[in-house]
């Protein structure tokens, strides 16, 4: 998607003059490679509003939505630990994002070898960012305030590590987990976000680099399509969760004692708030309040509905009854799958995607998990990683204009225009992006779990686990009555 910042010095005065001249000309010509001062005049109040509203919606996806969705699924004795883990991951993650995360993900790296893989530290502590600097969108000569971009992307960076805790639920120590999150964001999330989403923006993509090579992340330059985070968020977190649950081992009593969800009411509330918040996640990722945002919005709505229906049907056919947990799981699987596709598909294609993703995730959480006997406690792998992979691949298919998608936008031209669509080539690129994410996130996560476990210990004692993490880790209970 994203970014190139402009230095804001003196932009204010110059922008007022430019705005005046723009009024004189009813249809100003597009400016190739606008200066910082010119770009500062290309900010729209509607877009800015939409980005700030979307940011709040995505924050709501973490707290309370994800916390309640996960919390309802654990046993009463661990409810509070899940709430606290999610709450603190977003708090600590916010600081990490401001200190070095934004710069690592969305700045240009002065080292040309590293530049495609990770940003530099030139914007650490938001150096050089102020209320006059801007960030690019997907349209030529349209910008949003850089602060709006910083906070919007921040909500993605903080929800992603929070997703991982679902795999580790019931059996992980609090502070070592927080350390894992800081390191994982730094070594995994920010580089992956940089590879997939960083670019100089449509006005600069091919014009700023002296080599005439496009200025963007490794996977972005390859043409990987990930509208709102199928690879960056869901596959990334899903595989990290999977590695974590294998590393920690099964919960005490897994497979012998019943571990039913303690409150599916909470889970339903959480899933519903996720659905609502996801409009900010997906339609907000369009970065402008226009038809593209509306497309992502409707796709998000209908794919989710379709996936909830198809999971309920799976439950009916396989277990004889439609379950609430199944419907909620299906809705989340649909949201995950449509995330990378939301701006690159049509509504009917999105419905097909939603109908298809639930049976696949249903198979993974119900059959594959027990067959291979791993304890992915809340099915982060089965829903987020698998759903993300389905979505990332489907994006390559559904973007095809022949299937109702918007097609390939060629940013090497000015202004950018729709180019020829090659579905097979796109699918190969999508596979590359999926593989890079799986390998990097999975591999680095394994090293991090191992190192933190050796130094601090990752898993609580068996007695502590039996007693429940609420009391042993936090000294409180979720419920006192």
């Amino acid at each position, binding site marked *: 998607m994203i970014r190139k910042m402009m230095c804001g010095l003196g932009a204010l005065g110059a922008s007022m003059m430019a705005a005046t001249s723009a009024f004189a000309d009813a249809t100003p010509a597009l400016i190739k490679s606008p200066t910082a001062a010119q770009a500062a005049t290309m900010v729209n109040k509607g877009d800015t509003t939409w980005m700030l509203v979307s940011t709040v919606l995505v924050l709501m996806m973490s707290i309370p939505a994800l916390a309640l969705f996960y919390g309802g699924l654990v046993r009463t004795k661990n409810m509070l630990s899940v709430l606290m883990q999610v709450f603190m991951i977003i708090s600590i993650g916010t600081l990490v994002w401001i200190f070095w995360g934004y710069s690592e993900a969305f700045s240009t790296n002065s080292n040309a070898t590293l530049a495609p893989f990770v940003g530099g530290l030139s914007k650490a502590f938001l150096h050089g960012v102020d209320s006059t600097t801007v960030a690019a969108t997907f349209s030529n000569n349209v910008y949003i305030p850089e602060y709006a971009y910083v906070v919007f992307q921040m909500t993605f960076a903080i929800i992603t590590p929070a997703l991982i805790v679902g795999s580790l639920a019931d059996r992980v120590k609090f502070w070592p987990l927080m350390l894992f999150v800081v390191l994982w964001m730094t070594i995994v999330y920010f580089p992956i976000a940089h590879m997939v989403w960083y670019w100089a923006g449509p006005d600069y993509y091919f014009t700023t680099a002296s080599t005439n090579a496009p200025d963007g992340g490794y996977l972005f330059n390859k043409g990987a399509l990930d509208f709102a985070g199928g690879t960056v968020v869901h596959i990334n977190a899903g595989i990290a969760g999977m590695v974590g649950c294998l590393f920690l081992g099964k919960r005490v009593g897994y497979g012998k004692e*019943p571990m*039913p969800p303690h409150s599916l009411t909470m889970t339903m509330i959480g899933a519903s708030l996720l659905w609502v918040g996801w409009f900010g996640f997906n339609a907000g990722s369009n970065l402008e309040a226009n038809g593209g945002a509306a497309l992502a919005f409707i796709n998000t709505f209908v794919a989710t509905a379709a996936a909830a229906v198809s999971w309920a049907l799976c439950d009916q056919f396989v277990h004889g009854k439609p*379950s609430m947990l199944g419907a909620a799981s299906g809705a989340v699987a649909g949201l995950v799958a449509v995330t990378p596709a939301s701006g690159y598909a049509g509504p009917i294609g999105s419905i097909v995607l939603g109908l298809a993703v639930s049976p696949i995730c249903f198979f993974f959480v119900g059959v594959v998990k027990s067959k291979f006997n791993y304890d992915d406690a809340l099915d982060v792998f089965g829903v987020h990683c698998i759903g993300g992979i389905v979505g990332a691949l489907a994006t390559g298919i559904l973007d095809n204009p022949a299937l109702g998608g918007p097609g390939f936008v060629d940013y090497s031209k000015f202004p950018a225009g729709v180019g020829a669509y090659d579905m097979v080539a796109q699918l190969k690129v999508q596979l590359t992006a999926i593989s890079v994410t799986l390998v990097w996130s999975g591999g680095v996560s394994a090293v991090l779990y191992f190192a933190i476990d050796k130094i601090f210990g990752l898993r609580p004692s068996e007695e502590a686990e039996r007693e429940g993490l609420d009391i042993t880790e936090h000294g409180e209970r979720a419920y006192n009555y």
Partner: protein
Amino acid sequence: MAAGEWPAGFKGAGMKFIIAIIKPFKLDEVREALGALGVAGMTVTEVKGFGRQKGQTEIYRGAEYTTNMLPKVKIEIAASDDLAPRVVETIQQTASTEAIGDGKIFVIDLASAVRIRTGESGDTAL
């Protein structure tokens, strides 16, 4: 007062303590019927347990759990010897669905009862 001695006028015996375990949805019916009989009070607790009734199977994302402990309601009533037989009979008749899992009624001799507010004891405290 020496250890082991009751206060003057303390009355005991002549009462039964009735514990009934019933299906939760029958509680209102039982309470109404007992009220009509003149039972002045009862204590109700939500409990879990098992008897001859089989458990239920629950499935969460494909993981099947058989729950042996089923939710029931426990009613505790203290009644005078005069009233006790009719209390037991009434509970038995109102709580019955003629299916397994309807529950049980236990009757034990009650040594005494005291009304905390006034200090009255024996069946006048009921």
